[in-house]
């Protein structure tokens, strides 16, 4: 097991995982998705979680986002130990503090872009009119002000992902969790989306975790957690990558 990746900075980590394991099934069909993962994710930067399919990226991000319980280990998010949190506390905690961007966007087809972006605010109990007004502001920030009234079916893949990003940011969460946000996009749209993350999502008090296996976007990551077979194999900082040849990292 790797030692927790601690940094010399005084910044409080947004996410700390210690010895996190996850198994699915039991007996002969038991699958070890995570095997004692230790990570720390700092706010104010994009952290990438990379690795081959089946290495445990999605399981880890699900646990970090409070969507899945670990079999073993501790998960601290924004100072709260969420693996020990009861569901009635965890659900509102997630709604208040975590923003999600999904690979397939998961926009509600019957809602306009602005209404989709307003969903987290509606979940938080905002009135619809006020929530949609706020959502329009965020859509403006992601460059979609003119498409606010369009339905998802009327938007391109890149535009839908930008709506999804607006939805993830509209309630100003302190942790943004993104699963393969560029996987369904062409290279140019993928670059645009990642630039958007760098420009709009990254804030001093917000941590951004992006699961990806798209090495064309690795350079957007401040830190890259390489995963293999349910373990963190290697952690790279931006400086370390700059000294390398760039074969596997951009």
């Amino acid at each position, binding site marked *: 097991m790797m030692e927790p990746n601690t940094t010399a900075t005084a910044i409080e980590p947004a996410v700390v995982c210690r010895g996190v394991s996850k198994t699915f099934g039991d007996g002969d069909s038991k699958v070890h998705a995570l095997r004692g993962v230790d990570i720390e994710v700092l706010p104010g930067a994009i952290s990438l979680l990379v690795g081959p399919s089946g290495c445990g990226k*999605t399981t880890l*991000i*699900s646990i970090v*986002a409070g*969507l*899945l319980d670990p079999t073993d280990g501790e998960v601290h998010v924004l100072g709260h130990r969420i693996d020990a949190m009861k569901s*009635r506390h965890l*659900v*509102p*905690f*997630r*709604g*208040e503090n975590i923003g*999600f961007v*999904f*690979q*397939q966007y*998961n926009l*509600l*087809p*019957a*809602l306009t872009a602005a*209404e989709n972006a307003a*969903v*987290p605010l*509606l*979940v*938080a109990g905002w009135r*619809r009119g006020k929530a949609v007004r706020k959502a329009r502001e965020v859509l403006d920030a992601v460059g979609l002000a003119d498409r606010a009234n369009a339905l998802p079916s009327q938007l391109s893949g890149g535009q839908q992902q930008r709506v999804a990003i607006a939805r993830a940011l509209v309630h100003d969460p302190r942790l943004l969790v993104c*699963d*393969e946000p560029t*996987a369904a996009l062409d290279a140019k749209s993928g670059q645009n989306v990642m630039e958007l993350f760098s420009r709009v999502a990254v804030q001093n008090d917000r941590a951004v975790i992006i*699961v990806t296996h798209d090495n064309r976007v690795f350079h957007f990551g401040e830190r890259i957690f390489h995963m293999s077979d349910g373990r963190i194999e290697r952690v790279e900082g931006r400086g370390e990558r700059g000294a390398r040849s760039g074969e596997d990292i951009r």
Partner: protein
Amino acid sequence: MSWLALKMLTGDRAKFVGLIFGVAFSTLLMAQQVSVFIGIVKRSASQIYDVRDADIWVMDNKVRFIDEAPGLPDSDLLRVRGVEGVDWAVKLYKGQVRARLEDGNFRNVMLHGLDDASLVGAPVDFVAGSLADLRRPNAVIVDENGYHYMWPGEPIQIGREFEMNDRRAVLVGVCKVSAPFTTLPVLYTRYNEARHYVPRERNLMNFVLAKPAEGFTADQVAEKIEASTGLMALSKEGFVVKTIKYFLSSTGIPVNFGITISLGFIVGAAVAGQTFYLFTIENLKQFGSLKAMGVSNLRIAGMILLQAWFVGLLGYGIGIGLSALFFEATANIPHLAGIFMGWQAMTGVGLAVGMIVALAGMLSMRRVWVLEPAVVFRG
């Protein structure tokens, strides 16, 4: 979140319309069949309802329903009149006879022989002629639907003659009555005329109609009559219930209608349940996203229940509306006359539709309830 639930529901127009159609069709089927059932059952007692001036029916104590009453000796009338609490009592004959028309055709008819003096039990609503004409020799009155049954396609014409038991009968009036259980014409004549129209029997009178004196209820007097004469005496309502119970227990009506109504329920439950369930399954990712974004299971359940109730309410409204239109459109068709959708049918069907949507909602809710929000991260 209610707004969000309804937007999700109505977003896919085709599925939404399918859902509404399923519930509406089921509602229509159930409401229509329940109403026809209630109407037909009520018809079995319609001739009891139509005797408005007497509150007590006295008959042989083995009678099971109105169309199966043997004759009573005339002395029974006097015995009834002698019971304390009886204000007045008159005789009534009611039975089936065969009428031979001018062209030689025969029709079975339901003949009522009314007390000559009082004409108790006579119809009150006339299309042609009047009750006073019934006092003329050989006079008979027929109900409007019965007239068209006896002389199809012909305009109403007073003075027509026909025969019953080889005795001349003259039509002096056409009246409106509640539709009978069978399609037989309902004829009225005086009791003493009926003597000639009915094939010879030892006793003709098969009912005594009575009115309780002031200070007595119909049930009280009926009890006294039974105790005093050994005959069966029932209040009007009691006789209605007895007759309806007979038809329900001794005919295939409840079973046949029950099957159709059950089919309506099953079809409705299957169509609405399956469509709603599929709608939820197709939206699992969306529900998963909402759960990930902090929507609790309880709120999700509320959203699904709201969707289910919205579908139920709309489908029920449309189905009931269509059913009402059906009965409005068929109000003047003799075979469906008097059959309408009452509050009982609307309430019963409403409860059934409520069960359908509740079942559909719960089935769907269970899938969402056990859904792991982490599903949103699975491609």
